[in-house]
Every structure is written in structure tokens, then in C-alpha cells.
């Protein structure tokens, strides 16, 4: 059964190809069947493989399948080869399953759109690239998947190309992610140059043998790979593209910018964990990036008025948690949080899609309200997702995964009290903005009437995800044991905070956030506006709203000068050298043609003069 592994990326890729070439001529129904069918097939195959992998795991805990050698030059022999172990299995199953649900959802959501087949072609291509990334046996194939998902995110953000704003948002996403990829590429060169191979398993082994702990090469490699991860997972400092990426259709935001692509960075760091173990400085940097992004995104989410941008910032903040977990060495916890986050964040996006669809594409949460009764499905599933996101104790999956991270941060030798407290403040912010969102959208009086009720194909996936968001947490124990086969276990040391203490403190933070949100946005709606009135508040609000001014900074620092200089140099300053040469030759010509006066005596003068000159040369030399 494991031999069918290559089908998982192949089927979606075939689907994408088929839809791209034949799609435009097919009817919408046929396109939907092909699009969703291919992902369903991939999901079934991955589930079967998962079942067999769990029931009778292969000897070394991993299965490698090589199709052909891709580039063969001397010692550099990367192949098109897939590597399946517990880590990639979990990621593949989650990704394919969530993609299937979102494809089902978007068959109805995109109904009537003139680029219907184009949308499904891009989505299939995305799933194929993501799976290739996850199953890649060597870093070069991983890089192929990496850039493939970046491309699909560009294509899907700019899907409604008629409006130039979407196109520019897509461009921005692709360029910022590729900036990260450049760092990652240099990391690849460094790894190959020093360790002689790009095959991940051999790489890890070679790193372990050749590099001592803390060796500068390991730190450099770690930081460079972190650069790539930061770009793709929209972490500090390259997170400015994700909020603008919300210009894409909501299913895209759900699939790419919430559940799967943005966690590729987490997968990369988890996959190359040996490098980070050998470079504590790099690992600490990962933790710092995590904690800082966590807090910054949390604050920014508080000030947003667009429902999707709130969720975008919340995604950045949750991935911050995953980076924090990786930073402190809790590899399993990070992946566990990835799984739960994939479920509830996809759920939140799809539910908000229903809300937007119902209110004639209204995005401003201040113009929504009282949807509790109008859209019960959306409300209950949104509430489930929200609680999971905020971490309602004991019931929601979010609580278990986030608590595991907080506990590990407290008890990890690298972590410490400061990071733990930061994490707790993060939990407070998360519950604050989540319940602000819920209360503003679903409570209070109805501001815009609901026109369109979601059909079964939109409601179904949302309910399934809601269920997963709830029961997802209970598999924590078996999930951890599974993870230890692929990733190193977590070593307890440091404060020795017990499980119980950290979960209760997190629960208190959750409750506090809930109450404050209830107090501000339900009892005294005016209070929020007054908070912004006094001068400091308005400045802070604008600062947080514009993602801590980073977007403005990049625009001033990098984008404007480059564009200005390029337009100045439109006709190539080097060309003026040759125009200069041409001008000099022409002036020579003008001067020379003066000697041709046509007068007979002038000709004779030149002959006499010439003779005198030659005589002089002869006499003097």
C-alpha cells in the first residue's frame, strides 16, 4: 500500500493539468467533480497509507520512494523521491483532509464565478505542491514544493484580476515570500557545500557527525533556513504580506493562508531540527521570532475592522506559538498545535465566508450584528472555532495544544519564565480579540439584513471542522507518542511548573479575556471608541492597525526608491557612453570636412605642407 505514496501528489497535479487545459470548456458541475474528486482521491490514498503506516510501521520508522534522479551532476544527485515518516504522515493527512473539505465548500462558494475552472486548477496545483513539499526526500524537491505553493498563493490572491488591488496584493505576497526563499536558497548552498548532500536524512546525520554544538556553520544554516520559514509563514519581519493576502477568495484564505501553506515554515524547522539542536543560538532566535510575532499580531488583531484581517492576524499570532514551541524544543507540541490550528482556523475562515456571502460581501464587522438568530449554523460553528482559538479549557482542542506549548515553554531549558509570561499575555489577547469578533458579529442588533442562507455543501464541511475543533484535543496522548518516532522528545528542565498549574493559569487568562470582551463590546459599546479618543490612544490604534508601521517602513525604505531609480534609468545610462562616442566621431567628421575646401591652391598647400612635415619627421628623428 505504501507504494502508492507517489499518487498523493500526482493525482492533484493531474487534476490541475486537466482543468487548466480542458477546464474552460467544461460545465461548472464537471469542473467541481474533477476538482474535488481529485482531492478526495488523494485524501483516501493518504488515509489508507496512514492506516497501514500506523498498523504496521516500517522497520526504520520511515518509508522512502524514489521515482527518478532529477539532476545528476557529480556528487550532487537529488532525486524526485518521497520520504514518509510520522511527521510528514500527520501533515499530509491533515492537509489533504482539510483541503478536501475546503474544495467541497468552494464548489458552492465560487458558484457563478467566470474563472471557476481556473480556480479549481490553481487549488489542485496548490495541494499537489504542498504535498510535494511535505513528502520531499531532499531539500531541492522541498524547495520545488516551497516555490510551487508560493506561486499558487500569488495566483489565488490575484484570482479576481480585474481589480488591480488584488493583483498588487498577489505580487506583494509572492515577492516577500521569495525574499525569504532567497535566504533559504543560500542556506541550501551552505548545507550542500559543507555537508556534501541535500538528502534530508543524510544531511541530518552528516550535520550531527561533522558539526559540534554551537558551530558557526550550524548557526548560519539555522538562521538562513529560519529566514525562508519566516518568509513563508509570515513571521516577523516578513509578515506584512499575509493581511493583504485576504484579497483572495475566502476558501483560498482558509486553505492557504490559514491551514496549510503558512505552516510550511514550521514543518521546515521541525524537519531540520538537528541543525537547530546543534545551534542553540538559532533555536533561541526561532523562539524570539515566535514570541515577538505572537504579541505584535495579537495587538494588531485587536484594532482591525475587516473580519478576514482579524483572522489573518490571529493566524500570524498562532503560528507565533508554533515557532515558540519549536524554539523551546517542544517539536511534538508545535505539530500538535499545527493540527488543531488547521481545524479551527479553517473553520473560522469558512464560517466567516458564510457570513460574508450572507451579507452581500460585507467585510466590516461594525456593520454586522445580531446574526445569532439569522445564521445559527454559522454562529454555533463560529463559536466552537472561537473557543478553540481562545482555548476554552478542557473542551476545545485549542486549549490542549496551546497549554502543551505553554507548559513546555515554562519547563524547557531554553525557555523560561519570561517566554511563559509572554505566552500567557498572548492567550489573553487571543481570547480578547476572538470574543470581540464574536460579540460584534453575532450579538447586538441586526445592522444589514441576511439575504442568502448557506447550502448543505457549505454548511457540511463547517460542521465537520467544528466537531474536529472540539474532539481534536483528546488525541493528545497518542499523538505525542506517534511524534516521538520522528521528532526528538521534549526534555523537561527548568522551573518545574506542573501541568495543572500552567493549564489553570491559562484558563484564568482565557476567562479574563472573555469577561473584558463581554464588558466592552456587549455592555458598553461606546467605551471602545472613547478609549481611542485621547491622543495616545489614537496614535497607538493607528500604529497597531497598520501592523506596527512595518508595511509603511518597507514601502518607504525599499519599494519607493527602487521604483523611482528604475524609472529614472529607463533608457539605460550606460547607453549614453556610446552616444557620446558617436557624438565625438561626428565632431571629428565636422572638423575634417572643413579641410575639403575644393580650392586648387589649398590642395597644393597640403601637398607642400605634407612634404615639409615628412621632411621634419625624417630630419628630427
Amino acid at each position: 500500500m505504501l507504494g502508492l505514496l507517489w499518487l498523493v501528489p500526482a493525482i492533484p497535479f493531474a487534476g490541475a493539468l486537466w482543468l487548466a487545459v480542458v477546464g474552460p470548456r467544461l460545465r461548472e458541475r464537471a469542473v467541481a467533480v474533477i476538482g474535488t474528486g481529485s482531492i478526495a482521491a488523494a485524501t483516501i490514498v493518504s488515509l489508507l497509507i496512514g492506516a497501514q503506516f500506523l498498523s504496521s510501521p516500517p522497520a526504520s520508522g520511515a518509508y522512502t520512494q524514489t521515482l527518478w534522479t532529477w539532476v545528476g551532476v557529480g556528487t550532487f544527485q537529488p532525486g524526485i523521491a518521497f520520504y514518509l515518516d510520522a511527521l510528514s504522515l500527520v501533515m499530509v493527512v491533515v492537509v489533504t483532509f482539510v483541503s478536501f473539505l475546503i474544495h467541497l465548500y468552494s464548489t458552492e462558494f465560487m458558484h457563478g464565478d467566470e474563472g471557476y475552472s481556473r480556480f479549481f486548477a490553481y487549488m489542485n496545483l496548490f495541494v499537489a505542491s504542498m504535498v510535494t513539499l511535505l513528502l520531499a526526500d531532499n531539500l531541492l524537491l522541498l524547495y520545488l514544493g516551497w516555490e510551487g505553493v508560493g506561486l499558487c498563493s500569488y495566483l489565488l490572491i490575484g484570482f479576481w484580476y480585474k481589480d488591480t488591488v488584488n493583483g498588487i496584493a498577489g505580487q506583494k505576497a509572492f515577492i516577500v515570500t521569495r525574499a525569504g526563499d532567497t535566504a533559504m536558497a543560500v542556506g541550501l548552498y551552505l548545507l550542500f557545500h559543507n555537508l556534501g548532500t541535500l538528502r534530508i536524512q543524510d544531511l541530518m546525520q552528516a550535520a550531527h557527525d561533522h558539526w559540534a554544538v554551537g558551530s558557526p556553520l550550524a548557526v548560519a544554516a539555522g538562521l538562513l533556513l529560519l529566514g525562508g520559514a519566516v518568509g513563508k509563514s509570515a513571521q516577523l519581519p516578513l509578515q506584512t504580506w499575509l493581511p493583504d493576502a485576504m484579497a483572495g477568495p475566502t476558501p483560498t484564505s482558509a486553505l492557504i493562508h490559514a491551514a496549510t501553506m503558512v505552516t510550511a515554515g514550521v514543518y521546515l524547522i521541525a524537519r531540520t531540527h538537528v541543525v537547530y539542536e546543534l545551534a542553540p543560538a538559532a533555536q533561541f532566535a526561532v523562539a524570539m521570532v515566535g514570541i515577538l510575532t505572537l504579541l505584535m499580531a495579537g495587538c494588531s488583531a485587536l484594532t482591525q475592522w475587516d473580519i478576514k484581517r482579524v483572522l489573518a492576524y490571529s493566524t500570524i499570532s498562532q503560528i507565533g506559538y508554533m515557532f515558540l514551541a519549536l524554539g523551546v524544543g517542544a517539536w511534538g507540541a508545535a505539530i500538535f498545535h499545527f493540527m488543531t490550528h488547521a481545524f479551527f482556523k479553517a473553520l473560522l475562515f469558512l464560517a466567516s465566508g458564510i457570513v460574508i456571502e450572507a451579507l452581500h460581501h460585507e467585510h466590516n464587522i461594525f456593520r454586522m450584528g445580531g446574526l445569532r438568530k439569522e445564521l445559527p449554523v454559522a454562529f454555533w460553528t463560529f463559536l466552537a472555532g472561537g473557543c478553540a482559538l481562545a482555548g476554552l479549557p478542557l473542551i476545545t482542542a485549542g486549549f490542549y495544544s496551546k497549554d502543551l506549548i505553554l507548559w513546555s515553554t515554562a519547563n524547557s531549558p531554553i525557555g523560561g519564565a519570561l517566554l511563559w509570561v509572554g505566552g500567557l499575555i498572548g492567550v489573553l489577547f487571543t481570547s480578547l480579540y476572538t470574543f470581540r469578533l464574536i460579540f460584534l458579529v453575532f450579538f447586538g442588533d441586526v445592522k444589514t439584513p441576511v439575504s442568502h442562507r448557506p447550502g448543505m455543501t457549505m454548511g457540511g464541511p463547517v460542521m465537520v471542522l467544528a466537531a474536529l475543533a472540539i474532539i481534536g484535543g483528546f488525541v493528545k496522548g497518542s499523538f505525542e507518542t506517534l511524534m516521538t518516532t520522528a521528532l526528538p522528545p521534549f526534555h523537561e528542565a527548568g522551573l518545574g511548573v506542573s501541568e495543572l498549574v500552567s493549564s489553570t493559569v491559562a484558563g484564568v487568562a482565557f476567562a479574563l479575556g472573555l469577561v473584558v470582551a463581554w464588558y466592552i463590546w456587549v455592555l458598553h459599546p461606546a467605551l471602545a471608541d472613547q478609549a481611542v479618543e485621547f491622543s495616545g490612544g489614537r496614535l497607538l490604534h493607528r500604529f497597531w492597525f497598520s501592523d506596527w508601521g512595518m508595511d509603511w517602513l518597507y514601502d518607504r525604505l525599499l519599494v519607493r526608491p527602487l521604483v523611482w531609480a528604475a524609472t529614472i534609468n529607463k533608457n539605460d545610462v550606460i547607453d549614453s557612453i556610446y552616444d557620446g562616442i558617436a557624438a565625438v566621431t561626428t565632431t571629428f567628421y565636422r572638423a575634417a570636412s572643413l579641410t575639403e575646401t575644393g580650392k586648387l591652391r589649398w590642395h597644393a598647400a597640403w601637398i607642400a605642407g605634407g612634404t615639409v612635415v615628412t621632411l621634419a619627421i625624417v630630419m628630427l628623428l
Partner: protein
Amino acid sequence: MTLLLLILILLIGGVLAWAAARRSASAARWIALIAVLADFFITLNLWISKPAAGAGRWITEADWAWIPQIGVRFHLAVDGLSLLLLLLTFFLGVLSVLASWREITDAVGFFHLNLLWILAGIAGVFLAVDLFLFYFAWELMLVPMYFLIAIWGHEDRIYAAVKFFIFTQLSGLLMLIAILALFFVHHGATGVYTFEYEELLNTPMAPGAAMWMMLGFFIAFAVKLPVIVLHTWLPDAHTEAPTAGSVVLAGLLLKTGAYGMLRFVLPLFPDAAHAFAPVAMALGVAGILYGAFCAFGQTDLKRLVAYTSVSHLGFVLLGIFTWNSLALQGAVVTMICHGISTGALFIIAGAIQHRLHTREMGQMGGLWAVVPRLSGAALFFALASLGLPGLGDFVGEFLVLLGAYKQSILLSVLATVGVLFATFYALKLVQRAFQGQNTFNWSVPDLAPHEGLVMAVMIVALLWLGLYPRPVLTTFEPVVAQLEQLPAGR
């Protein structure tokens, strides 16, 4: 014997096309197409039958005495490198004939004569192994290209054609001096007058003289492979040339420069080239960055694509002078894939100009709705030119950068930033031309069947090279081995 056949078919085909044009234009087109296709299949059969065989250096040879008095022989030979480039020549030749099927209406016969004679000249350059014959073909290649630009070009084609001619001719003359200097130094050392490549290979010479001669050759090839300061003829020539001209210019003429470096500069003057390598690599990287920077600033579609060639060929230069197996293989793959992807972009630009009668991206916009298949193809090739993994260009560029990293980390990092710059212009091209509002509400027909065929063939070629480049790599293997053995090579 087959090698001479390759050139003769093209020359005779050209004359036949000119003659046939009197009766009917399409007859001329068909004759040209058949001639280039015949050559393509001969080379393909040569490649498949014995890809890397051949006892000595050459796969096959054809050798006659030409001017015995000064040791000039009519010596054609093929090895891994020239076989690949010949394949590219005839592949792009067929596509350029197809691409100008509807675009060229006046003096069709003379057009195809020139087009086929350019291909014959280029084939001559790749085949010639006698330095005199090489210079002969090198100069001959210019004349039909000059006519192609000067007669069928666009607005200020005369300026572009004359500029192209003088740039290449002057640098060619510098190469002539270098060839003759080498010829006399060889005579001084061995007392034999010959232009034979293999005999001239390891002539003992003073380092100073070697450097000057190497520079003579290098400048001629640097003008052709546009190295940064000598590149200003390229945007004018490419923009003003007709589609077939631009495809042949970008796809093939630039490669003759790179081929020249691999064939003559490195092997003939290993120590001088080795000493010069850091400068050349820096020039390459500067070319990558400056080419991308200029491309980003352009508003004319064809000019933008022309500047991308400056950037891509910067990679080839970097690859050649890094002088290890990774970089050299990368340089060759980049050459081939750049030929295809930029050739395709020029065909698309030509198709757009043929429909909208303008190349200004400012007047385009929203073309995706009007011509979806053309825009799809353009998106594909724009992605290929920005080095998307899975397509040919990425494999080439990655190998070059990987190899360059061994030599100097700084240059490799700068070049990788160059790849990022490539994203800027590629996305600007797609955004400005195909996305956004159809403000000028164009309504033009989409791709014709034969144009669709051209696009499909190129897409398949790039995907094949991107996912399975091994055949190309194995063909070039022996040549890399020879290059690496040179004393200076590490």
C-alpha cells in the same frame, strides 16, 4: 559529411525559398519550414544515436583542406556542447519560421532567405573547429541578421541594425587580432602554420601575451553574450527586430558568445582565463543585477524581455568562469532553457504587437479576459524566466549558484538576490500587460492553431528540461571533464 549537409540544406533552402516566393508566399514558408525541420531531425538522430560516444574529443567530424598555404582547413566537428546548441538552433529555427507565418507579408522570399542563412551562419559557428572558419562563420552570421532587422524591423530599425552590426563587427575584428597573434605565437613555438583548434590548444606562450589574446577573444564574446557594459546594442536590436529576428537573436546569437567562451577562451588560455575569472564572475553578477534592474524600469514589452536576456546571460557568464562541473553544467542548461523561455516570450510579444500594433504595456491591461490562452502561455513563460522550480531555468540557475558558492560566497548571494529581482520584472510584465482593467477594451482573436502548437511545444520542452534534465547533462558530461582537467581548473 552530415555536418556539411546541415549547412548546405539551409543555404540551398534559403535560395529556393527566395525563388519560390515569386510564385506564392506560402510556398516560400513551407520550403523554409521543411529545410529547418530536416536539419532538426538530422541533429536529433545524431544526438539519439550516439549521445556521448566518440573516441577522441569529437562525436563526428568533416575535414577538407581549404587554404593549405596558411594551414586553413574546412574542419567541422561536433562534441557534446555544440550538439546541444545545434539542437537548440534548429528547434528555435522551426519555431521562428512558424511564428512569422502570418506576421511577414512583404518580400516573404527574401525574409526566409535571410532567416535560413542566419541559421546556417549560426550552425557554422557551432560546427567550425578551425579558427579561420570560425571567424568566417562569425562574421557571416551578422549580415543576414542585419538585413532581417533593417528591412522587416519596426520604427527606428535602421539605428538598431547599424548599432548591432558595428558592435559585433568591431569586437569581431579584435578577435581576429587575437586569432592571428595566437597563430604567430604558435608558429614561433612550433614552426607550423595552422589554425587547427586541437593543435593550437596547448601552445606555450608568455603570460602577458596570453592575457592580451584571451582578452581579445573575451571582448568579442562579451559583446555577443551581453556582458554588462557592452550590452546596450541588445535592447535596441531585440525591440526593433521582427518576431523571428528577436527569437533567433535572443535564443541563438547570444549563445554563440557563451559557446565561444566555453570553446575558445577557457581551453586556449587556461591560466590567463583563470587569473581573469574573478573579474568575469563579478561582471556576470553585475550583469544579473543591472539587467534585472533595467528590465524592471521598462514600459516597452519587448525591451523588458530583452533586458531579461542580459540578466539571464549574466548567470551563464558566472557559471562559465566559476569553472567547476556544477557551474558549467548549470551554464549550459541555463543557455538552453533561456533560449526557449525568452524565445517564447518574444513570440508572445510579437503576437501581441501583431494584434494590438503596440508594445507599450501602458496601453495593454486586462488582456486575460480577451485572450486567455495567450495570457496563460505568457504567465507560464514569465514564471519560467523568474526561475520557478520545476521549469528548466531553475535547474540551470540553481546549479550555477551552487557551483558559484564554492568559489565565492558573496557573488553567489548577490546572484541569488538577482533571482529575486527577476521576480519583480516578471510579475510586473504579467500584472501590467494581462491583469487589471481592459481600459482600452481590446477585442482581438486568441492564439491561432499554429501559434498554439508553438506554445505547447515550448511548454512541454521547458517542463521536460525542468523535471528531467539528465539527457542534457550526460551529453555535456565529457566536455565538462575536459574543461576541468585544464591545469588551472581545480
